[in-house]
């Protein structure tokens, strides 16, 4: 999103981390700009979704994303390697294990609204955000010219 004071572009999710020390952080509806510290009102979800729908929001979000992210943060259509699971409870871990969502498998996110739909192998699954957040993935690098033969691949984004 965009800071309404200094006009800096930043990732609202990332900014939330900065808030975690604040006492009222859970119920509060504002987001602190990481550059100037101004509290902007949180982007309404509907608005964020609409933006994502038009593609611009999604692209911006994708640029801001590191290679390690959660399944829920992938773009629809994107594949990634599952590297770890961070379930919130034993039950949730059990569900992911039961579905065969395990580190080492490749997952393709197909939809992120109204639920998260993804594919592992020939199976298709749907989960809510909570479970998709629990799956940590490493994205393959996209929109990078194919490495010349012999060059080590894949590239780290930092090297770009």
């Amino acid at each position, binding site marked *: 999103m965009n800071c309404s004071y200094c006009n800096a572009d930043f990732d609202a999710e990332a900014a939330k981390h900065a808030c975690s020390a604040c006492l009222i952080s859970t119920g509060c509806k504002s987001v602190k700009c990481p550059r100037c510290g101004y509290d902007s009102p949180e982007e309404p979800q509907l608005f964020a979704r609409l933006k994502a729908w038009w593609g611009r929001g999604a692209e911006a979000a994708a640029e801001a994303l590191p290679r390690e992210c959660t399944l829920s943060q992938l773009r629809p259509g994107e594949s990634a390697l599952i590297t770890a699971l961070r379930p919130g409870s034993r039950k949730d871990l059990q569900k992911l294990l039961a579905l065969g969502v395990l580190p080492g498998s490749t997952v393709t996110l197909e939809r992120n609204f*109204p*639920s998260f739909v993804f594919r592992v192998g020939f199976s298709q699954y*749907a989960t809510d955000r909570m479970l998709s957040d629990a799956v940590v993935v490493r994205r393959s690098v996209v929109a990078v010219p194919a490495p010349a033969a012999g060059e080590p691949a894949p590239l780290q984004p930092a090297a770009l």
Partner: protein
Amino acid sequence: MTVIGIVGTPNVGKSVMFNNLTGRYATVSNYPGTTVEVSRGRTRLAGGDVEVVDTPGMYSLLPITDEERVARKMLLDREPQVVIHMVDAKNLERLLPQFLQLRELGMEVVLVLNLMDEARKLGVELDVPALRKRLGVSVVESIATSGVGVPELKEALALRLRTPGPAAAPLGYDPALEQAIHQVSVRLPMSFAGSERGVALLLLQDDAEVAERVKAATGAGWDEIRAVIAQAQQDGEPPQYRIALARQAEAQAIAQACVRVPRSRTRTFADRFAAAAIHPLTGAPMLAVILYFGLYQFVGVFGAGKVVDFLENDLFGTYVTPAFDAFLLRLLPAADGWQYWTRELFGGEFGMITLGVTYAMAIVLPIVCLFFLFFSILEDSGYFPRLALLVDALFKRIGLNGRAVIPLVLGLGCDTMATMVTRIQETKKERIITTLLLALAVPCSAQYGVITALLVRQPNGVLGMSYAWLAWASILAVMFVGVGMLASKLVKGEEASFYMELPPMRLPKLSNVVVKTAARMKWYFLEVLPLFLFASLLIWVGRLTHLFDALIAGLVPVVGALGLPSGTAPAFLYGFFRRDFGAAGLYSMADTGALSGNQLLVSCVTLTLFLPCVAQFLIMKKERGLKMALAMSGGIVVTAFAVGATVNAVLVATGISL
């Protein structure tokens, strides 16, 4: 007797295979979770009778829902001598860990690679001889729906029943785990002989149910076992995670050696359709179309309107009932005394034959049958899991998750049956909320049909739906959401995260649809027809003893408060036995023009909110306990009247006339 168990994940064709083996029908479904009860049947193998048991699907031997516990309990009790492990051939790699678990429990397993047709179409190639060698068990390829592989499976089973197969080569885990497994297994009592390794692994994964079992069997030794488990839980990643990873690595190694998967996959028409069903822009209109044509037009207007009209008025009304009454009158001609009352028991306005059987055959049978047909088609196509993911976010607001669609939609057919299906839900809170919503705000098909037929005749409306019907449907929707939201705040307990496999969408198979519809109809009639007769009997006793006159007199002021004529009081009284009985009573009043549009709406809303029938109460008691069943029922009756009175007050205050 020798027992053979069929286990596997949901939707791999277990029920179809069960039918193939036993010639008996278990309900077949394309929705995870509709086989709630265990089906048993018999077949002849190796010259003897054997029992075949079909179990509800499970994803892992660590159960999440109650129904998954059913299959596991059977395995832990070591009930089957041989287990048929059914897997989806194209997903072998993902399903092999379950196979490994079965072997760790010391089960004799025959692995069935089902859905071979789908696997071939996708270009998945399986090296079966290599699999046999590597896994050390019989492996059979099959297409359950066309019977391919059934003779081979029988042969493999017969062989296993005669001679036990080689023991499973144990899969190795990391050293710390192996040590813990060893320490636990040596302390297990004799009763677990053969399955020590599997049981030890379940214990190390902190399985409370297995712990109970072992504790009961070991006595004093349990403390030592518990110490080992606690220790294992403490070092490093949770054991269940480490165990799952090790099994997956093994599964990958096996798959690498024995399975060839094509790199690219072709998108079929069914895939595209499935994708459209879960896209919010296309999914919502699709749902609306399905509901409008399926429920409103097919079940409501066609079933409850046309078909019932024909059966009730033309067939029963003109021929069967008058003929039966005339027959009774000839047999017992006296105008009063015992002859009159005997006549009334079987015939007349409320007789067991003229009311009970007529209602069952002419009204309920066609409506329920059409509903189950509609339901079975949707179920077999694989649409329900897609519906579940569409509504998950909305259902979270009423304390449920997407999985609740199956009981709730089934409730539109029969609330009683649906209340039983709440067992597929994970937490107690969800089961309570679903039970309440089913009893209060989800009209069953018989009632829904009668009420639709009743309200749709009101003159003003749009799109073939009268305003009265729309108002009725909206009030129910508001009650559903409102009570759901309230209940999600009031009912204590955990909510569950939503996860679900989406089976491929398939064109419904006529035979499956017929079998499923027939199985549900059979259940319905065994459960419900006796109740119809029982209700007629109660009404007869009530009238004979003049008890009903007193009750009706007591109800007159209540219906008066709803702005209804006293003639509706009997309809409400009968509505306590079955909501649709009451609704049908209104039907005849509306026919004579004794009720205005507003009064119809008020009485239909009130009746719909009542408990659906006596059977509903009994099943609520069975599933939720007497205390909760009574509390819910009391609350529901009060709510029903309160909402009826409110609707009436609003109509009066606004001067709306429907």
